[in-house]
């Protein structure tokens, strides 16, 4: 056991930190769920990409720097520590890219990865449907074989980034007689293709953080199928059990929040109720624990272990941690904690409310925590399936 970073990891961290200190915008960008904010976030992605920080774990030929998982974890810590902008390219670089790298043809990789990494093409995800929320296998959107490609019909929902984005990845039923996980195929679809309609869904804050996407006889050529026809479920899920479980929410995000929370308690001094001080300490411990668990998993992966239910345990842990961190902050701030970022009195505190609202969704998306608990109980502990 040697819990120190290597000299090269330390150098790497110093380099990241220096670049971010010089380049992170002093004022927060407008939300990427607005037209202007979307553009400004794309500009930021371009700046990141120019400096080689956009997609560090990718092969250099597609715009990455072949960074190790540990370097990526370090990068993420520094990124959140610096308060850098949220990644508008997130769906593409974290969810699609691993599948593209594993299952894509060389042409597909060359076509799609570089503009994704530079933030020129922003990807929306197309998993959920109105009747397939947590139960993803219940997909009804279908694709019919036609000359040179497929015709897509149906509807996707909860597509983040679709309101202003350029492409969508998602799975469609190509075998009309198939059920559940079989007979699905993974498609890459331009959102400006004829027959595609995008309708933004306003969230609590009124901004279209999600969209519905309607497909009305949308032609998609064969070279926009990712992986084998009929194996879309496998393509979509194969990366969730590997690094994705580890990379969906890196510890850096929660470490930065935990440190801000500890500072908030310190700053409030006697104005912080002792119980909140205690709850803040527990949340800080938990953020630290999440980091240690991640490093431990990284060590095991380097030693050749496969990641299984760790991603379910991770999901439960970080989503509850995130909710706790923000709830404690709001409890510390009293009525002031309910102000939006626009309120003059909110000052730097407005971010806690936004974070709270976002954190409340944590136990829901990416597979509800109830589903994750079932996975742990059945696949790790070996308890019987429900009758």
């Amino acid at each position, binding site marked *: 056991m040697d819990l120190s970073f290597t000299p090269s990891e330390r150098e790497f961290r110093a380099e990241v930190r220096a670049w971010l200190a010089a380049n992170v915008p002093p004022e927060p960008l407008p939300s990427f769920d607005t037209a202007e904010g979307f553009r400004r976030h794309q500009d930021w992605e371009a700046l990141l990409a120019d400096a080689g920080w956009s997609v560090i774990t990718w092969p250099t030929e597609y715009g990455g720097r072949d960074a190790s998982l540990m370097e990526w974890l370090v990068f993420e810590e520094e990124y959140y520590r610096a308060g850098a902008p949220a990644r508008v390219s997130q769906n593409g670089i974290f969810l699609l890219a691993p599948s593209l790298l594993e299952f894509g043809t060389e042409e597909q990789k060359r076509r799609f990865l570089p503009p994704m990494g530079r933030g020129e093409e922003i990807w929306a995800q197309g998993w*959920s449907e109105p*009747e397939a*929320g*947590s*139960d993803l296998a*219940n997909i009804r959107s279908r694709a019919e074989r036609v000359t040179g490609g497929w015709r897509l019909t149906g509807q996707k*929902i*909860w597509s983040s980034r679709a309101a202003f984005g350029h492409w969508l990845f998602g799975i469609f039923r190509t075998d009309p007689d198939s059920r559940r996980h079989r007979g699905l195929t993974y498609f890459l679809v331009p959102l400006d293709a004829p027959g595609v309609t995008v309708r933004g*869904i*306003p*969230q*609590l804050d*009124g901004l279209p*953080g*999600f969209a519905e996407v309607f497909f009305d006889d949308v032609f998609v050529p064969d070279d926009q199928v990712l992986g084998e026809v009929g194996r879309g479920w496998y393509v979509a899920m194969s990366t969730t059990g590997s690094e994705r479980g580890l990379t969906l929410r890196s510890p850096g995000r929660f470490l930065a929040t935990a440190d801000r929370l500890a500072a908030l308690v310190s700053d409030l001094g006697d104005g912080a*109720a002792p*119980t*909140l001080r205690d709850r803040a300490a527990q949340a800080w411990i938990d953020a630290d624990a999440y980091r240690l668990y991640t490093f431990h998993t990284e060590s095991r992966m380097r030693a050749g272990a496969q990641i299984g239910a760790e991603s379910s345990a991770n999901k439960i842990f970080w989503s509850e941690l995130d909710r706790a961190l923000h709830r404690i902050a*709001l*409890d510390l701030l*009293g*009525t*002031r*904690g*309910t*102000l*939006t970022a*626009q*309120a*003059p*009195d*909110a000052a730097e505190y407005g971010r806690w*409310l936004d974070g709270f*609202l976002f954190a*409340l*969704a944590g*136990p*829901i*998306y990416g597979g*509800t925590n*109830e589903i994750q*608990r079932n996975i742990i109980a059945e696949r790790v502990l070996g308890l019987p399936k429900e009758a």
Partner: protein
Amino acid sequence: MDFSFTVEQHDFAAAVAELLRTHCTPEHVRATKSGFDRDRWKRLADIGMASVCVPEPHGGLGGDDLDLLLAVEECGSAALPEPVVESTTAATALGAAMESGARDGGHADHAVLLARAAEGDALLTVSAPTDPYVAAADHAAALLLEREGAWYVVDRDRAALTPQPSVDAPRTLFTVEWDSDGGTLIARGEAARAMSAAVLNRGALLSGAYLLGAARRLIEMSVSYAKDRIQFGRPIGSFQAVKHHLADAFVAVEFARPQVWRAGYSLTSGAATADRDVSAAKASASAAAERAAAVALQVHGAIGYTHESDLHLWLTKVWALSRAWGNAEWHRGRVASSLIDQRLTARLP
């Protein structure tokens, strides 16, 4: 011992609920972007909502908090946008000040103001001693404000309001600046301290009652959604995890309700335990409502996050009111101090 409300109290709440079913549907709530609909407020006043706690000589019904609790719970169940907590608290405080001031002649302008408030023609609001912001100040004719241990009535036109938008947009919040000569003194010294205590307790009590209604409705909406929504081939409400979450939220609300009622009785009867009883009630109601909100979001999933779903009308009320008038932490601290530092463990009843 009788833990029940009178027929009149039930009837009043039923009348309020009936009015809100017609005039405060989710569509109406959405349409009330400013947070105040004069027509609806006037209708509510017509059936007595604004005058229950106003003394009879000033055009009110001379009732007490117990006459209001069930009706305010109905307001919460409808997510009523109008500031029923603050306006009632303000009117009651001004009425009490007038009553004690009556011995010295009172203040003629205030009598007119109070009578207009009772009629629903003028809105009053008040600053909560726990909070730096005044709710609905933009809609109010006058504000009850505390400064350096004294209470004043301040004309809205004599005050400078800075909007402080919050998670519950229709519940408009403001920081208020005003010159002392713009306000009329209504209490100072011991009377002002008593008014501060009464204002805090009444605001906490009524926001607790409102939260019970909002929490009840959140559970009802979630139950209804869970019955209809099919996932993995069955209604999600048939899954134990969903059932148990909802059952726990239900239990929390059911056990908070008698605490709110008892707090109303303590206030009304001037019990020695009133501060502690109000704080227990607000702490429990805030926690139960927060729990109901979290469960409702979890049951609804992504749709609960959208503007299209009605759920957010109640969620935002809960997030705002569970923290206004002292959050659960603050009130639990007041209970601890009474119970442990002062060893006041006597109970009412």
